[in-house]
C-alpha cells in the first residue's frame, strides 16, 4: 500500500479527515470511497471503513440513506450532517495551522 510503514499511525489518524472530505464533496457509498482512496497513501479496506463510518454516524458527523441500485440490494449512501460540515471546516483550518507550524519549525 505504502512505502512508509513507519507513518501508519499518521495515516490512520488522518483517515477520518480524508473520509470527511470525500463524503463532504458528494453523497457516496462505500465502494466509491474505496475507489477514491485506492492508489493513494490512504488506500483502505471495507474492514476498516465500515467500523469508522459507523462511529462517525454515532458521533453524528455523517448520516446515510438507502438508495435502490440496479444490481443487488439497496445501498447506503453517506453524506455529511451539519456537525460533520463544521468538523470538516475545523479540521481543514487545523491542518493548515499544523502545516504552517511544521514549515516554520526548524528554520
Amino acid at each position, binding site marked *: 500500500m505504502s512505502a512508509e510503514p513507519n507513518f501508519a499511525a499518521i495515516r490512520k489518524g488522518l483517515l*477520518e479527515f480524508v473520509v470527511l472530505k470525500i463524503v463532504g464533496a458528494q453523497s457516496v457509498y462505500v465502494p466509491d470511497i474505496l475507489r477514491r482512496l485506492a492508489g493513494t497513501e490512504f488506500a483502505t479496506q471495507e474492514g476498516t471503513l465500515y467500523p469508522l463510518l459507523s462511529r462517525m454516524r454515532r458521533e453524528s458527523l455523517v448520516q446515510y440513506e438507502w438508495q435502490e441500485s440496479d444490481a443487488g440490494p439497496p445501498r447506503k449512501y453517506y453524506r455529511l450532517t451539519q456537525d460533520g460540515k463544521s468538523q470538516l471546516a475545523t479540521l481543514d483550518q487545523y491542518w493548515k495551522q499544523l502545516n504552517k507550524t511544521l514549515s516554520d519549525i526548524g528554520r
Partner: protein
Amino acid sequence: MQRVITVSLNRNPYSFEEDANARLAAYLAEASRTLAGNPDRDEILADLEQAIADQCKRRLAPHQSVITLLELQPALDEIGAVQDPGAGPSAEKTASTGSRPLEQVSEGAWISGVCLGLARYLGIDATLLRVIAFILLLISGGSMVFVYLVLVFLLPFAPLDPSRGTAGKIPLKSREFVQYLRGKLGVPA
C-alpha cells in the same frame, strides 16, 4: 466432492462449500470479537456480510452458484481484517495494552502465541516464560506438548494488530488452522 451449506448473509441466502463456510465463520467470529463492546457491532457485521456477499458474487463465473474458497479468500483479502476504530481521535486511544484477557498473540509468536499471550497476561517477560515452559516440557517428559495443544485449541486469539508488528508464517498458519477447526466443530471461536 464437497457438501454445500446455505448461509444467510445480511438476510439473503448464499451457498458455500464446506471449507469456504468454515473460513467465513472464522472471519465473522474474529470480526465479532474485535467489535465486542462496539455499540454498532451488529450493523457493522451486517455491512460486512453484504460486502462479502457482493464480492463473492462478483467473482463467481456466470454459470456457477456455489461459493468456494477460490472466491471467498480473495474477497476476504480485499475486505481486510476488521479494525475497531476505537473512540475516535478526539478521545485518543489510551492504554490499549494491558488488562487484555488471556489469549494467543500472533505477532512475534514462535508457535501459536500461547507463551506470548500468557506472558502478557501475567505481565512477565516472554523469554522468561518460554524458558519456564521449556523446563516444564523437559521435566514433564513431553506431556506438556499435550497441554500446549489444548491451550492452542481453547485460548481465543487476540485481534491482529499491525501496530504490534507482523505475525510470522507459523503463528498465522496455526491461527488459521485452529479457527478452521473451530468452525468445523461448531465451537464458538
